[in-house]
C-alpha cells in the first residue's frame, strides 16, 4: 500500500545528490548538465506521483511482471530561484509576490519511473539560453503543471527515455512529436503504450507487442494512421549500398519548411556503432546568411546546419550540426559546445554520428499534398522564370521559402508581418476572404523573392491530390509580382498594393 510522503525541498548545495536514485548513465549526466545550463537553483520532489504515461505502461506491461513494480513515480520540479518550504508555503497561501516569483522561476519537471532501465519518464524542461541572434525555431507548447493546488507553466516539448519494454526509440520519437501535433481540439495525445499497440495493430507481421525492442518504419507510419493523423514519408535522395541517405539541399530545405510550420519530424536512420535509430527533431537554427545568386535559385532553408533533437538515449533539445561527406551525404553530430559534459554523456556525444535515411512527419489528415511535390514544382516555376528573365536581360536571383500554414494564420499574423498595419493589410485580408473560393483549413504557401525583394506568394490547396489543380491563388506584393503571376497564367491574383 502507498503511504503519504511529504514534499522534499533541495537547494544548490544538494546538487551532488540530484537523481541519486538513478544509476550513472548518459541521460543522467546530460539532464544534470542541462539543468545547470537553464539556471537550476532549487527543486522540489513529489515522492508519490501518478503519471499517465507510466500508468499506461504499468497496465500494459509492468503490472504482469513477477518483480512487483510500484505504480507510482517521483516528480521533480525545478526552479531558477532558491525555493524552500517556508517560501513555498507563502506562495501556495496565495501571497502575491511569492506566487508570482514561484511561477516565473519554474523551469519544468522530470518524472522518475521506478524502473532499473529507463528511469527518466515524462520530462518537460524549458529551453536553454539562446544566443544574441535569437533565431532558434523550436516546436514547443505550454504545459500546465499542478503542484499543491497551484498551477505552474512550462514551455517545451515532452521527452522521455526509452525503457525497451513498452517503447523503444521509435515509439518515443512518435510520442514526442505527437505531443505537439496532437495538441489541438480534435486529437488526444497518446501514451507510449498506446503508440506501440497502434504500431502493431495492422503491421506487426507476427512480432510480439511487448517487450518492444523497436519498430519498422512501416509500423511508425501505421501507428500514426491509427492515431488519426497521416504520415508524410520522405526518403533520402542518395543511396549508400541499400541504405537511403540525404543530400543537404533536400534534407535542410524539407526540415526547415516542416519545422517552421510547427511540425516536429520523426527522423529514422543509422547511428554509427548502434544501428537503426529514430529521434524526434524539434527545431533548427535558420541560417539565412547565404544570399541570392544571380540567375540561380536559392532554397532559403537549404543552408541550415544546426538542428535540435529529442534523443531518447540522451535527453531533450540535443544540439546537432549537419556535416557533409564527399558524396554529398549528410550526417548529424553534436558540435563542440561551450559546456563540457561530464561522464557518460560526454563519451556518448563524442561518438555520436547519425545518418538520416527517412523523415516521417505526422500531419492532420486534411494535409494531403507532399512537401516533395511542392518543392519540385517550385523549382520548375523558378527555373522557367529565370530563363525568361534572362532573355529579357534581367539577371536576378530567386529565393524560395515554403510552409504549411493554417489559412487563418496566413490571413492573420503572416500577411500582417509582411504588409504591416494599414489599408493594404485590410484590403488584402478582405480579398482573401471575398475573392477566393473556400480554402481548406491548411494551405501550402510558396514565397518567392527576386533578388532581395519579396515578390509574391503562391497559395496551394493541401486537401487535394497533386494531380488536380492545387493552385488557389497568387498574392502579389508589388507590380512586379502581379506581372510575373500574369506571365505564369495564375487564374486568381490578389494584388496587395492597390
Amino acid at each position, binding site marked *: 500500500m502507498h503511504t503519504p510522503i511529504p514534499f522534499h525541498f533541495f537547494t544548490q548545495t544538494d546538487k551532488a545528490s540530484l537523481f541519486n536514485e538513478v544509476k550513472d548513465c548518459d541521460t543522467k549526466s546530460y539532464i544534470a*548538465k542541462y539543468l545547470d545550463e537553464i539556471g537550476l537553483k532549487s527543486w522540489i520532489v513529489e515522492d508519490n506521483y501518478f503519471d499517465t504515461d507510466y500508468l499506461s505502461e504499468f497496465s500494459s506491461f509492468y503490472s504482469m511482471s513477477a518483480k512487483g513494480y510500484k505504480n507510482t513515480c517521483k516528480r521533480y520540479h525545478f526552479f531558477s530561484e532558491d525555493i524552500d518550504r517556508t517560501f513555498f508555503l507563502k506562495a501556495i497561501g496565495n501571497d502575491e509576490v511569492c506566487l508570482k516569483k514561484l511561477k516565473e522561476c519554474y523551469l519544468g519537471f522530470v518524472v522518475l519511473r521506478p524502473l532499473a532501465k529507463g528511469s527518466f519518464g515524462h520530462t518537460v524542461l524549458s529551453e*536553454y539560453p*539562446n544566443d*544574441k*541572434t535569437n533565431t532558434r525555431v523550436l516546436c514547443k507548447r505550454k504545459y500546465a503543471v499542478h503542484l499543491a493546488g497551484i498551477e505552474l507553466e512550462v514551455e517545451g516539448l515532452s521527452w522521455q527515455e526509452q525503457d525497451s519494454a513498452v517503447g*523503444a*526509440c521509435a515509439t518515443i520519437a512518435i510520442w514526442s512529436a505527437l505531443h505537439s501535433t496532437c495538441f489541438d481540439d480534435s486529437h488526444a495525445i497518446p501514451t507510449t503504450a498506446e503508440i506501440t499497440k497502434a504500431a502493431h495493430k495492422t503491421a506487426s507481421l507476427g512480432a510480439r507487442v511487448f517487450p*518492444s525492442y*523497436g519498430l*519498422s*518504419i*512501416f509500423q*511508425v*507510419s501505421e501507428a500514426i494512421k491509427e492515431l488519426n493523423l497521416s504520415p508524410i514519408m520522405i526518403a533520402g535522395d542518395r543511396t549508400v549500398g541499400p541504405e537511403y541517405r540525404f*543530400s543537404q*539541399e533536400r534534407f535542410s530545405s524539407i526540415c526547415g519548411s516542416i519545422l517552421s510550420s510547427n511540425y516536429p519530424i520523426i527522423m529514422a536512420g543509422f547511428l554509427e556503432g548502434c544501428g*537503426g*535509430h529514430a529521434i524526434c527533431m524539434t527545431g533548427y*537554427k*535558420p541560417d*539565412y*546568411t547565404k544570399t541570392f545568386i544571380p540567375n*540561380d*535559385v536559392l532554397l532559403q532553408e537549404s543552408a541550415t546546419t544546426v538542428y535540435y533533437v529529442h534523443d531518447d538515449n540522451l535527453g531533450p533539445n540535443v*544540439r546537432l550540426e549537419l556535416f557533409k561527406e564527399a558524396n554529398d551525404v549528410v550526417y548529424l553530430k553534436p558540435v563542440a*559546445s*561551450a559546456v563540457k*559534459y561530464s561522464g557518460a554523456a560526454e563519451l556518448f556525444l563524442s561518438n555520436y554520428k547519425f545518418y538520416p*535515411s*527517412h523523415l516521417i512527419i505526422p500531419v492532420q489528415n486534411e494535409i494531403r499534398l507532399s512537401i516533395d*511535390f511542392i*518543392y519540385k514544382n517550385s*523549382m520548375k*516555376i523558378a*527555373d*522557367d522564370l529565370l530563363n*525568361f528573365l534572362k532573355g529579357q536581360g534581367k539577371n536576378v536571383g530567386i529565393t524560395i*521559402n515554403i*510552409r504549411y500554414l493554417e489559412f487563418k494564420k496566413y490571413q492573420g499574423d503572416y500577411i500582417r*508581418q*509582411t*504588409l*504591416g498595419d494599414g489599408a*493594404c493589410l485590410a484590403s488584402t485580408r478582405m480579398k482573401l476572404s471575398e475573392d477566393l473560393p473556400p480554402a481548406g483549413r491548411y494551405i501550402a504557401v510558396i*514565397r518567392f523573392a527576386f*533578388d*532581395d*525583394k*519579396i*515578390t509574391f506568394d503562391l497559395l496551394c490547396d493541401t486537401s487535394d491530390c497533386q494531380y488536380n489543380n492545387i493552385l488557389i491563388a497568387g498574392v502579389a*506584393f*508589388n*507590380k*512586379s509580382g*502581379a*506581372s510575373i503571376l*500574369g*506571365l505564369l*497564367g495564375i487564374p486568381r491574383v490578389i494584388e496587395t*498594393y492597390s
Partner: protein
Amino acid sequence: MCEKKSKTSSMENVNLWDKKVDVTDDFLGLTALKGKVKLDATKNDPKSPVAKRGECFDVRLDKKSLETVIG
C-alpha cells in the same frame, strides 16, 4: 549545450517571412508584358542545372527500406 556566440552582419537572418515588402515597387519592370506572354513551367529543360537540382525532390519510396527496424 550553450549556443556559440556569433557575430551578425546586416545581411544575416533575413527571413522571407519576417521582412516587410515595399508595395509600390516595380523593380522588374514587366508591367508592359502583362497578358502578352505566358510561361509554361511544365516545359522546362530537364538538363538545366535548376531542373536537375529539383530532381532531388522526386524520390520514390522503396518499400523494402520501410521494413528496416529502428530501436
